[in-house]
């Protein structure tokens, strides 16, 4: 039986230009959905069906996209909950947090709470789904992965470690059908009361670079700050040095 997978997408925001774009993590949610369900994937957005960014998602090879139409001041969670309850869904894929709006990262949790499903946060890959159970790799810091098995249905939020979204093809996106579902929302009063202001960049400590050549400048610009985790072993015996490396590998779970 083909999997019933829904990817939720939002309007992203480019960090440099502040312009609307396909969100990095949501794009990965669509990519993962396409990998698992192919053309059966449904992609859902809450908001304005005329939003041009939706075409960028659709350009990834979607023939249609569902929009639960409501104005910005309404909360996305209740309408999503109602929509997802009606369908027989196996997996809901989202980003970890949106790039615009409140960007609280709460949507997957609130939805899971409402639906009574587990949340699997920061997914790097969903390897396969067999007998009602998915094998999932979670992204941990420093490139580590944790393998877990999760029973369907569940909500997964995609980490930046997941495979990046494929290129969006203009023509495909242009021709995709946007199916609009009118929805009655609840005003998100907290959101409405908020004020948005431009974030002030934190002042950076000036680094004095005494480099003379381009190569030195490059080194100075790219060198990692010295952490306190490392140890320098020079005078120890070979035995001790080897032991230190071995311990580190164990600690990092490179070997078991």
């Amino acid at each position, binding site marked *: 039986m083909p999997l019933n997978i829904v990817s939720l997408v939002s309007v992203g925001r480019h960090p*440099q*230009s502040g312009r609307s774009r396909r969100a990095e993590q949501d794009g990965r949610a669509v990519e993962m959905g396409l990998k698992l369900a192919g053309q059966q994937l449904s992609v859902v957005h809450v908001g304005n069906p005329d939003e041009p960014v939706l075409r960028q998602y659709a350009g990834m*090879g979607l023939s249609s996209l569902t929009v639960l139409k409501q104005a910005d001041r309404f909360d996305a969670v209740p309408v999503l909950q109602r929509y997802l309850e009606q369908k027989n869904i196996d997996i809901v894929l989202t980003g970890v947090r949106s790039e615009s709006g409140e960007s609280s990262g709460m949507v997957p949790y609130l939805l899971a709470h409402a639906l009574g499903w587990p949340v699997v946060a920061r997914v790097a890959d969903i390897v396969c789904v067999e007998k009602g159970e998915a094998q999932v790799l979670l992204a941990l810091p420093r490139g580590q992965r944790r393998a877990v098995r999760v029973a369907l249905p569940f909500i997964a939020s995609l980490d930046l470690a997941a495979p990046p979204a494929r*290129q969006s*093809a203009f*023509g495909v996106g242009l021709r995709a059908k946007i199916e609009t579902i009118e929805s009655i929302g609840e005003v998100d009063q907290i959101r409405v009361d908020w004020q948005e202001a431009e974030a002030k960049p934190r002042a950076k400590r000036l680094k004095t670079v005494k480099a003379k050549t381009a190569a030195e400048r490059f080194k100075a610009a790219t060198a990692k700050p010295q952490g306190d985790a490392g140890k320098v072993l020079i005078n120890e015996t070979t035995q001790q040095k080897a032991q230190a490396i071995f311990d580190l590998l164990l600690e990092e779970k490179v070997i078991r």
Partner: protein
Amino acid sequence: MAIDWLPSVLIVTLLILAVIGGVRRANLWRAGQPEKVDIVAGLLALPKRYLQDLHHVVARDKYMSQSHVATAGGFVLSMILVLLVHVFGVSNRLLAGALLVALGLMFVGALFIAKRRLQPPSRLSKGPWMRLPKSLLTFAVTFFVLTLPMAGVLPEGTGNWLLTMILSAGIIISLSELLFGMTWGGPMKHAFAGALHLAFHRRPERFGGGRSTGLKPAALGGEVHGVAKPSDFKWNQLLGFDACVQCGKCEAMCPAFAAGQPLNPKKLIQDMVVGLAGGTDANYAGSPYPAGKGEARALGSAKGGADNVITAGLVDADTLWSCTTCRACVEECPMMIEHVDAIVDMRRFVTMEKGQTPNKGAQVLENIIATDNPNGYAPGSRTHWAADQNLPLMKDKQQVDVLFWVSDGAFDMRSQRILRAFVTLMKAAKVDVAILGDEERDCGDVARRLGDDASFQSLAKRNLATLSQYKFNKIVTTDPHAYHCLRNEYSDLDVNGVLSQGASGQAVEVLHHTTFLNHLVEQGLLNFERFSDTRMTYHDPCYLGRYNGEYEAPRELLRSLGINITEMARSGYRSRCCGGGGGAPITDIPGERRIADMRMADVTETGAELVAVGCQQCTAMLEGVVEPRPVVKDIAEILVGQLIEEVH
């Protein structure tokens, strides 16, 4: 001849077969998309286009042009006379004599062609093309003998059965090639399709010494974007492919081919012919696509048809992405075929329908869409480079003489040196200049060459809207790519005529900085010290030279410094690309060599210590070559070093 009626029957039969073939071939072209051409005007212009424009290109190769004039001229004349003398039976000694002369002329021409085929250069196709001179000679000899009695040289009815058999065989062999083969896909097809291609060319502006280099806008919003199948080309593009003589002049000039990337423009055009006619490339007898880093495909494995997707079996996408859009092939092609149009048409499909722009392509396009520059820099930092330049903004000035189009070089530290040098020169000449500042956007060059015409058109429209708010007479830029877009490609989208009406009411002049500086020097507004005796050469940027015909201004500027330019073997219209055009550094298709290294080898060969360029992209590519190598400098930088500033 023993049977008098035989030759005329044979001639007429083959002629009829040729006509049938011609109709069939024309139907293959008609599978293409409609495109308006002025049929009558085209046909009327045909002789002039052939004798003047085409021969202008062919004459670069004196040997070949003279052989061709003799052979082709001799053949056409002979064929007309053959029809009169042998088919319509006009018995006139003078006519027969003229026929003998024409055949003689053709014979001599064909001998020279045959001679070159003894040791053909690698760029020439072999196969049936090796047979062609023999067929030409057979024609000349056969009809010469056949005409002798009519010219009164031999008595009527000379010859026995054996001679009749031999002559009949000669007629069949030669006319099969020269009439039948002309429309059924033999080497002589180039004459038939070539003539019609000249008449119905998609860029008639190219004839009579004109230039037409801007890409045509893609139609947006249809069922398919770009060219997926051969039938998505315009009908006259298909006709153009069929005109190819497989001379390989394009191949010999192509930088991607020389670098061992999987592109050979001649093979590409032949593959298009396979596509339009259906079948495989098994009969192709020229150099293949270089293997690049992958495996070379065996001949016969490329299959195509008018309604088959080209990149699914006929041409690998890597072939399309290897092109730097340098136009060296187009410049060299004696049949005036438009390779670059075809390549970009097919790229449009790969990008806008398949979403498969290779390597950094997808990232760059996404950046262009989200930030209006290919590297995703904050649009608000576009003017940082000019913080110390005291350059007025258009927003504040509203009206100036010169609008300086800064281009994306604004974000690049190396290019900024060129920008600053140019600003210094303009200030010294007291030019009334301003920049758009953060209102400027990428010109769309890269997006367009990468096949994303939607993004190009969007950028062009927004840039035009910005420009429409201000008044100015000239746009000057140091970037030949922006120069080309603004000058040749924006006009298709400039519905409000922003560029056709400047401040003074006349069309806005779009100029490259070298052209503009040269004007200033001519007006005596800039004074320079003589340049010390450094051996110097000049690299013509493709988008300045071949795209816009500006070869002289940069050279004049250098000469005004007292520099004696040592020209490279390939310079001017034959300049070799630096490898930086067409998004090639972004798609980065592997080959055996780097194009920039080959160009630097050209420079080194002249013994130059300094190579002058007029493009930030060329600067980046040539400076990317490992040292030791000659120094690379933009002309503006060289000039600024010699500038004599008046002290007040």
